[in-house]
């Protein structure tokens, strides 16, 4: 193609400058919306610059101009062709009561699989400690060191110790729980990229710890204490971590693509919004669980009757089941 380069550049330069200036405005102020006329002009400038790039691409003498135009086109292309669904107004309530439960139900099979893996782990842990009580020290991580002793002694000490810890101490304990549990849930999701192996190991190990603690307390005749201690925060914390596993298994399923014809890129793209919704929901649940565990679960009889704690935990569990199982069903059907 033979073009008069001097004339071409002189003619086109004002359009390129205008496109660059529009892009700068859009990129500086993300919330700025273009009026219809501005949009039309923006699209015209993009078309014109793209056409200029096609012409310049054939000229050896203008690699810099070509790179400049490529850079402009790349930026404009990202703005113009980004037509994937964009939620204009985010409603936290609608998200919590509708989007989160619907997302959870869409991938409920992965959730049940996570539950099954955790249960297998719990059974394994339970059997291990039932057959060999010494296994407790080998299985429990360092942060559960307080549970290594005799459960009856711990219960007696907790019930004797009537002095409530300071609010500051409870706050830092709560923060520590939130950080740890949210970290575990994120890892459960992220390890999905190991074809799900990491997620399965994490869920199984969590189950083992749960099984060890439960069997240990039940065997010591401290079932009521166990329920009163675990249920208030565990009824939210455990499902949240299992939901982290659910997200990890979704990721693994997209990575493996068993029985799916779509490409890896399409599979990942399809689950991305759901993964984000789930992990945000999990974080929210674990913040609540952290607060409950620090400010409620640590109080025992006679300060707080176990029946109250158990009732509180069961109420939470029922509400969570209602939220995840029923909310947003009408909107789903519509």
């Amino acid at each position, binding site marked *: 193609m033979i073009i008069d380069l001097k004339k071409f550049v002189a003619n086109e330069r004002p359009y390129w400058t205008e496109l660059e200036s529009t892009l700068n405005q859009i990129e500086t102020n993300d919330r700025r919306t273009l009026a219809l006329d501005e949009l039309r002009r923006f699209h015209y400038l993009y078309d014109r610059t793209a056409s200029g*790039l096609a012409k310049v691409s054939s000229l050896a003498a203008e690699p810099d101009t070509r790179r400049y135009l490529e850079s402009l086109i790349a930026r404009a292309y990202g703005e113009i062709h980004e037509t994937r669904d964009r939620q204009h107004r985010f409603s936290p309530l609608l998200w919590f009561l509708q989007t989160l439960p619907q997302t959870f139900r869409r991938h409920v099979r992965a959730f049940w699989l996570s539950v099954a893996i955790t249960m297998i782990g719990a059974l394994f842990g339970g059997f291990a400690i039932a057959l060999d009580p010494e296994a407790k020290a080998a299985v429990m991580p360092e942060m559960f060191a307080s549970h290594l002793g005799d459960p009856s002694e711990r219960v007696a000490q907790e019930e004797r110790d009537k002095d409530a810890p300071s609010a500051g101490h409870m706050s830092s304990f709560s923060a520590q729980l939130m950080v740890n549990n949210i970290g575990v849930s994120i890892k459960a999701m992220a390890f999905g990229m190991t074809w799900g192996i990491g997620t399965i190991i994490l869920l199984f190990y969590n189950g083992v710890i749960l099984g060890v603690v439960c069997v240990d307390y039940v065997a010591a005749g401290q079932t009521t204490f166990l329920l009163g201690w675990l249920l208030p925060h565990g009824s939210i914390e455990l499902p949240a971590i299992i939901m982290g596993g659910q997200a990890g298994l979704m990721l693994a399923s997209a990575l493996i693509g068993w029985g799916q014809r779509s490409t890896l890129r399409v599979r990942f793209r399809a689950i991305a919004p759901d993964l984000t919704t789930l992990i945000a929901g999990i974080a929210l649940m674990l913040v609540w669980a952290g607060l409950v565990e620090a400010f409620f679960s640590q109080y025992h009889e006679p300060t707080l009757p176990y029946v109250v704690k158990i009732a509180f935990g069961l109420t939470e569990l029922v509400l969570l089941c209602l939220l995840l199982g029923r909310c947003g069903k009408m909107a789903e059907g519509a």
Partner: protein
Amino acid sequence: MSKTSTLLIRTPEGIVFSQLLAGPMSRFLAWLIDFCIVLCATIAVAMLLTLLDLVAQGFAQAIGMLLQFVLMIGYGICFEWFKRGQTIGKRVLRLRVVDVQGLRMKPSQVVIRNLLRFVDMLPVFYLVGGIACVVSRRSQRLGDLAANTVVVRIPRITEPDLDQLASGKFNSLRSHPHLEARLRQRVTAQEAALALHALVRRDALDPQARVALFDDIAKHFQAKVQFPAETMEGITDEQYVRNVVDTLYRPNRSNRLTPADTAPCVA
């Protein structure tokens, strides 16, 4: 699947443009800068909280723990979300995260690529992510793969300083404008850039390698367009290549774009 250094995008209008993909080293350096920033912010917060700890013991520790966690996870998410794929480290290194199709990232993509750092950073210093980056076709770590994102380089575009190469020198090719025009048509952008880079780096070359290199390049251009013999008389291969570059990059001296005209705007 062969490794590629560019992200080629064909628009629906049929225009093809390319973006350079960032390599593991530049990405690691960008991460290092971000890590230092997060570390400094954490230390600053910790120092402020020491004062709070005097009046509210325990609360300061709680806030510190939560802030550290939020900073560690939220830094990348917030910057890439609100600054269009650029953290401070990436901005310094002129990198940007974009969708694998060249589009803007969606919030879910930002969140996923940042949360999957937990697996990329295993066992230490992003070893898993680094290996994935080296192995994958588009230099993607696992987080990028799951989020369908790539990290591209934003080239600093400046007009080559031709004056230091050919200022005040007589260009014998200029006596044959029709052959110059043919040369401009037949030489590709890559060939022109190669000749220019050879000239820019000529002083760094070993004398023998320099003669051999310019002999090769001159022969290559001579095969494309044959100029009359008198044009070539008395000039070295290097001078000939200099003339070719002058012809290619400066078809008309009044027609040059200034660096300001060609410099891309970096958001």
